[in-house]
Each structure stands twice: as structure tokens, then as C-alpha cells.
């Protein structure tokens, strides 16, 4: 099976669900596999105070989204803009097969869409 950390986040996702009045909201989907993730962020003075996600996908994409929401809390929006794909995958999974990299990146791309599109009404 998958590593313990992945299974834990897949079975008990953190910060799962929609958010009322988020400051940022972003979607990303991978039509090839049907994965779809939406990330919500709430900020205070430019620092992420709350994060949540919803969506559907495989164990890698959903556990990645759960881990991402934990990682971003306390970070500045500027930090999020600069968050690299390699760094995210490494921090979340350590080692990850190349074939599953796109799964892991669905949530990161949703988060990037959120911060790049800026604050907007939902």
C-alpha cells in the first residue's frame, strides 16, 4: 500500500470541506484522470490563517491536498506564490514515483490559481 503518512491523510483528510467567505479560492482539474481539487484560503494581514480543500481524486491527489492545507497555514501569500513544485512534492511525500507527480500537483496548482487570481467573491 501507500506510505503511512499518505494513508493517514487520505483516510483522515485535514481541513476538508468548503469555506464560507474565503479570501482566496482556486480550482484545478486534471481531465486525464478526473481529479479535481478546490482550495480555499483565509488570510490575516497577508498571512494564511485558515485553509481548506474539497474535491475528488486518487489517494495521492487527496492526501496531497490535505497535507498542503496544513503546510500553508502561517505562511504569507507571497510565500505561497513562490512555493515550488519540487519543494512541495519533497516536503509532502519525500520520494514519489514520477508517474504520480501530476496527481500530487493538482492541489498545488489549485492553490496557485487561488493566489494568482487574487481575492474575489465566491
Amino acid at each position, binding site marked *: *500500500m*501507500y506510505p503511512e503518512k499518505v*494513508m493517514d491523510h*487520505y483516510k483522515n483528510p485535514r481541513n476538508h470541506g468548503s469555506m464560507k467567505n474565503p479570501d482566496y479560492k482556486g480550482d484545478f482539474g486534471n*481531465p*486525464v*484522470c*478526473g481529479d479535481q481539487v478546490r482550495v480555499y484560503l483565509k488570510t490575516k494581514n497577508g498571512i494564511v490563517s485558515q485553509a481548506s480543500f474539497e474535491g*475528488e*481524486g*486518487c*489517494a*495521492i491527489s487527496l492526501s496531497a491536498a490535505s497535507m498542503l492545507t496544513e503546510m500553508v497555514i502561517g505562511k504569507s501569500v507571497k510565500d505561497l506564490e513562490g512555493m515550488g513544485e519540487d519543494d512541495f512534492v519533497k516536503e509532502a511525500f519525500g520520494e514519489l*514515483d514520477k*508517474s*504520480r507527480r501530476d*496527481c500530487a500537483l493538482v492541489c498545488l496548482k489549485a492553490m496557485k490559481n487561488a493566489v494568482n487570481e487574487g481575492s474575489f467573491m465566491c
Partner: protein
Amino acid sequence: MGPYIMGGDMIKKVTDKDATWNDIPWKFEAGTPNIAGAAGFSAAIDYLNAIGMQRIEKHEEGLTKHAMKRLGGMEIYGPKKRAAIISFNLKSIHPHDVAYLLDKKGIAVRSGHHCAQPLMNLLGIIGTVRASFYLYNTKEEIDSLVDSLKEIKGGL
């Protein structure tokens, strides 16, 4: 009609002003032909003829019947009578997870929408896992597939 691709053998005469094309088929077969492919094709035909198509069909039928029986607990798509190819899902487990975990056990299947997104929409699913069997597969391998699926179902 002119050549659709440039390369050796598709011309007859070339000047600095114009060119005339070779006759068919050479005009459309520019460059080095797929010699290894033709030799491989010939060997494959000899191999299959030596075994006999009826024996191959019977073997495939036997494997499919065995697999359909053993995969009973899974969500299976398509008619009961079928060729040696079976699309299925383990309820609530993403097909890519199933395929990936099977791969880790040395079992190769395909997963996803199989270039048939409208059909997946009609079935209300994101994709399926698809196993296929052939001449070189055995009943024991199907049993091993089913055992692995049970393990994945229990673990995820």
C-alpha cells in the same frame, strides 16, 4: 497528389526549378521502410500459426470465463459474453490507485477513461481499471490479480 512526406525514393528527377515524383507506392513511402517491423510481423504470424488460432481462442475463452467468475465481487462493465478484456472498479477506490498498487505487485493493467470520456460520463464514473488476457497468461495469474485486488480493497 504530391508526397505527404519527403525522403529517399519519393522523387524521380530533381532540378533547381522543380521535381517530378516517383510512381506509387514509392511516392508515398519515403525513406527507409520499417524493415524490422516487417520481419517481426512475419515471425509473429509464424508463431501464431504454429500454435493455431483455435487453440488460442479456446485458451482466451477459458481465461475470460475464469476471470469473470473470480472477479464476481467487483463492479464489472460490459456484457457477460466478451473477449479477453474486462473493465471493472473496486467501489470508491480511484482506478489509478488500483492500477498503481497492482503495478507495485508486478501486475500490469490499464486505468483511466480509455479514450472514452463520453461513455464514462454516461456510466457516471471517472474511469475504470482494465485487465486483458492473452495466449501467454495463465489462470494462476488471474488468481494472483484477484488476490491483489482483495488486498487493495482491504487496505485502501
